[in-house]
């Protein structure tokens, strides 16, 4: 029963062994630490870079152009902002050269709040990322999806941004959501692939035999079928929305929860089918609310589903403030919380035109 961070690590291992990954690199990514969240422990191609995000992204682009298969980590997405022109360059490599080049690289980076990360360890990047054409953007909410999406990201001939909700990195898979081949006993898995405390120089991981299980980029997952309201969400908010939806069952409110999983190119077919069936839409994410990716989903919904809607589509997102404050009260006031989500779900489901 892997955690998300273990799932990512196993996927990177499969990437190295079978999908041609040549470099997993970034700050503290190589030994001895193996990543500040342990995502890269024990990987044979992992190496430490200088503390230079522009160098990390630039070098990843160079490696990609030379036909390598790099996975670069930005330690926290809060530190990716000074690389945005390089991200634009990577995203535009194929288009600008009219198809002469492609730029196959993966950037993985932890995002979002929920670990008391204060101002610079809590940022979201989904709105910004979806504003950089030429990238595919994925964001898993379960270890199994993290595993399968990472394999797809590695295999894709384009730049792929793998946004890992940092509050979920140590969350375990739900029963039935295991990765095929992983030991059922979480302690056994830990013994196999988690680096020991202290001296690690002699340690080698024992990787479980996990398969090439690709979760296709661009496919949403319906977490919970429902009748009255479609909730479109992703990352950390998937579990929060699902719990809120469960709370409403006793009130006779039946909410459908869709985990988008890929932000670009996203699964409009699944969304549209659901919205037309429930006639109501709520989008939930942690990013700041102004020019939020959810606004795009709502715009498209209004344009394409206007006459079937029974309530105004709504967005619950982060407050448009410069950061997430450290104190609990500040964090709770800054990003959507379960009670508020449940309240909005109830209001929308009961709204009559």
């Amino acid at each position, binding site marked *: 029963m892997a955690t998300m961070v273990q799932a990512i690590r196993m996927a990177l291992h499969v990437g190295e062994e079978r999908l041609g990954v040549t470099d997993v690199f970034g700050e503290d990514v190589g030994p001895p630490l193996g990543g500040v969240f342990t995502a890269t422990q024990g990987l044979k191609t992992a190496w430490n870079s200088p503390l230079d995000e522009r160098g990390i992204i630039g070098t990843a682009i160079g490696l990609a152009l030379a*036909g390598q298969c790099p996975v670069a980590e930005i330690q926290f997405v809060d530190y990716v902002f000074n690389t945005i022109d390089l991200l634009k360059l990577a995203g535009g490599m194929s288009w600008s050269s009219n198809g002469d*080049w492609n730029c196959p690289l993966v950037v993985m980076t932890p995002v979002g709040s929920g670990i008391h990360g204060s101002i610079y360890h809590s940022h979201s990047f989904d709105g910004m990322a979806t504003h950089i054409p030429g990238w595919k953007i994925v964001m898993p909410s379960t270890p199994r999806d993290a595993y399968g999406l990472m394999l797809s990201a590695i295999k894709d001939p384009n730049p792929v941004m793998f946004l890992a909700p940092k509050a979920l990195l140590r969350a375990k898979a739900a029963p039935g959501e295991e990765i095929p081949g992983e030991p059922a006993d979480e302690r056994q898995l830990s013994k196999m692939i988690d680096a020991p405390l202290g001296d690690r120089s002699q340690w080698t991981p024992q990787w479980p035999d996990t398969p090439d299980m690709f979760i296709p980029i661009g496919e949403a997952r319906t977490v919970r079928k429902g009748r009255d309201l479609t909730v479109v969400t992703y990352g950390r908010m998937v579990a929060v929305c699902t719990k809120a939806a469960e709370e409403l069952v006793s009130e006779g409110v039946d909410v459908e929860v869709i985990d988008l999983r890929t932000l670009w190119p996203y699964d409009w077919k699944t969304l549209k089918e659901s919205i037309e069936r429930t006639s109501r839409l709520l989008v939930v994410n942690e990013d700041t609310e102004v020019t939020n990716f959810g606004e795009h989903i709502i715009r498209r919904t209004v344009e394409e589903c206007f006459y079937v809607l029974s309530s105004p589509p709504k967005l619950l997102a982060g407050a448009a403030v410069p950061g997430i404050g450290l104190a609990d009260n500040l964090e709770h006031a800054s990003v959507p919380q379960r009670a508020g989500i449940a309240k909005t779900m109830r209001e929308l489901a009961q709204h009559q035109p």
Partner: protein
Amino acid sequence: MSTSSYQPAPRSDAEALDDTTEKSGNERNVTSADAALAPELLVRMHDLMLKARLLEERLIRMQKQGDGYFWIGGPGEEAFNVPLGMLVDRGEGVFHDYLHLHYRSSATLLAMGADPVDALRQMKNVASDPYSGGRNFAGHPSIRKWNVVPVSSPIEVQYSMAPGTAYAQKRAGGHGITIVTGGDAGTAEGDFPTCLVWTSRPGHELPVLIIVTNNQWGISTAGATQHGEKRISDRGKAFGIKCMTIDGNDPENSYHQIKRAMDYIRTERKPVLMEAMVSRLYGHSSSSGANYVQEEADCLMTFEKKLEERGILTRAHIDELRAKYTQELLDASKRVREEAQPEGSTIYDHVFAETNIVGLAAAKSRATANGRGN
């Protein structure tokens, strides 16, 4: 326009060598004087410099006549850029050189064998522009089959990408190197020290020729008003990188120095920082008028005078060549004018690649290398 007061005297070859912090066995204190280049090479170098200059002048003319929206290029840098292009190991994949150029590199491309008509096509933004299909400015080439990475307008970003191709080359073995070039003003960006740091990591030094063509200008701003460092190349010293400042207006000197630097990089697999003092003969771009600047040294004129004095070329021959290329480029520009613009409906083409083009090319070059026991 006056030249800036920032005038680091280009050093002689021997002095430049003293800049380096260590010397490898295969180096010697060559100077242009004691290693005269063969007359055929000089004639070829002149031919390319002349053609490159006339190409830029044709591009400027096209822009002024409305056959293009913007011009930027490298007239004044031919004496450095031509030898560079001649010395490139041209090809595809890690066993050849990668080039992270910028928008003043047309002479390098010509010396590598590029068709000047393609530059005209990019100026005219026609669909047949092989570099970008009418999407990008003149002077922004992309040639994957020669490892010429797409040139982009943001200043200095190429210096952050260069370590990546070089890392792949070092890992692959062989003698392929990465060449990155940009101007002096851009070294103020963080990407420049990124390149110095990433190419000199202890035990992981990278085979990169880090070039700065120093024309002492950043658009309208004189370098000396913004930069306190005496020489840009000095910045490499702190990293143990071999550094040199050379006279980039002398093609023979450039040829020797580039060759010497490349030989070192190809064999030692370590970086060299080369600052080449050059002129900017038509200003920054069409935005600043693109008119000939009388005050700066013209490397083509100086070189032609030298070749005449040595009896290698005659004025009559040079005039004949000039007239011939001028006419050819004029005719070509007229043909290009008739070529089709890209269709608006193509804007969504190539946002995403369908196949891993660079990955397949890498696999192919690995197979070839294995075949020849590289």
